[in-house]
Structures are given as structure tokens and as C-alpha cells.
């Protein structure tokens, strides 16, 4: 699974943000954009959002649900949850080492 994530290259960040946004339930495109802006401060544009969504769909990490008007919600899949959990674990390890090496206290 790690090898699959390594292949994302420069798209890793949008994918991670989208998977994080969908982790607590399905959202449509604009709701994903506003949610990402709220929790990360990243203002994702529509071109980047749908480029990343199409790749996530192809990898089977998200799936589209039935449309509600022109809006189509997306849902994270079990494989998407697995890759997100793995990535978060890796990030936690990096943060832990960074805190130890810089002398930062937990919760600071």
C-alpha cells in the first residue's frame, strides 16, 4: 500500500486533504473545498479538486454516489480509509521525531 502512495508524487497533498475531508462522511465538490479551507487553510481550486478526485476514483480510494441535482457526493472507500490511516501514522511518527529532536513539548 505504501508503494501506491509513493506514486502520487506532487498530488499527495490534495489527495490527503480530500481523503481527510471525506473521512467523516460523503461530501460534494464545493463542500469538500470549503471543508479543506476550514481545517487546513488550503484554498483548493476546482481544477485541482476534480483532477485529484478522478485519480482517487481510479485507485478505488473514493467512490461517487448518486447525484443530487448537479451535485455528486463522494464517499471514501475501505481502501481509502486504509491508505489515509497509514499516511496519518507515518505523519505522526515524523511529528514525534521532530518534537523529540527540537525539544518541543507535547501539546505545545
Amino acid at each position, binding site marked *: 500500500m505504501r508503494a501506491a502512495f509513493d506514486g502520487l508524487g506532487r498530488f499527495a497533498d490534495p489527495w490527503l486533504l480530500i481523503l481527510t475531508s471525506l473521512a467523516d462522511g460523503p461530501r460534494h*465538490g464545493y463542500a469538500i473545498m470549503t471543508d479543506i479551507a476550514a481545517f487546513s487553510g488550503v484554498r483548493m481550486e*476546482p*481544477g*485541482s479538486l*476534480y483532477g485529484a478526485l478522478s485519480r482517487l476514483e481510479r485507485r478505488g480510494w473514493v467512490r461517487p454516489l448518486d447525484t443530487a441535482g448537479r*451535485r455528486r457526493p463522494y464517499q471514501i472507500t475501505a481502501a481509502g480509509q486504509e491508505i489515509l490511516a497509514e499516511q496519518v501514522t507515518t505523519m505522526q511518527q515524523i511529528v514525534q521525531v521532530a518534537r523529540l529532536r527540537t525539544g518541543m513539548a507535547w501539546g505545545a
Partner: protein
Amino acid sequence: MRPGLAERLSRALVSWHPRRWRDRYGEEVLDVLDQHQPTARTVANLWASAVSAQLDPAWRTDRLLLPRLRRAALIAAVAAASLAPVLSLIGYQAWRDDQWHPAAGENLLSAGFSAHAAILVTAFGQAIDGTDMV
């Protein structure tokens, strides 16, 4: 960039994406643009998306792909047909000069193809498999 211009350009750029991409995501992106305030950044982002989608084989339509494949096959066939007599002639000359010895029973056509290896031998001093031939 003025907001009105950015919005018009953004909507135009959605139509620059491949037809299959528009069929799948076009309405959704237009819906997002209805709620989003497009800026110059939005325009640049959609332009990059359109270029990326046009280059992505997954979004190319058969209508665009098949003529390209047919044209490539035709060019390859014409090139092969043009080279065949030349290679045969080179092979025949090589055979006559006794630079190599075709196996008994080989005809001129096979000599032509075999001569290709002979030319490589002459150029590099060894056969393709690395054995010294000179």
C-alpha cells in the same frame, strides 16, 4: 483580473476539457463555479487541468484516438515497405561479398533480414549477442 472576466474564462475553460471528462465532471465543476468566486488563480488552475486532461489517455475519446492509430499504422506500413527492398539489396550484396554465410535453404528474403545483423556486426565488431564476429 476582474471577477466577471475570471468567471467567463473559468466557464470557457471547462469546455476545453476532453468530452469524456466534461460528461463526467463538467456539470459538477460548473456547479462549484456557481458557488465559488473565480479569480485569476481559478483560471490558471482550470487551464492546467484542461491541458492535463487532454494529455491523459484515460480521457481521450475513441473518435480522436482511432484516426491517430490508423495514421501511425499507415506510416509504419509505408516505411516498412520502402525499407524492405533496400534491406534485401544490402543483404544480397553482403551475401555475395561472403561477409556472412546464410544457412542452406534460406532465400533472398531471409538473406535480407539476416543482412541487418551482418551490418551490425560490421559496425560494432560483434554480434548482437556479444560474441566477437570480426
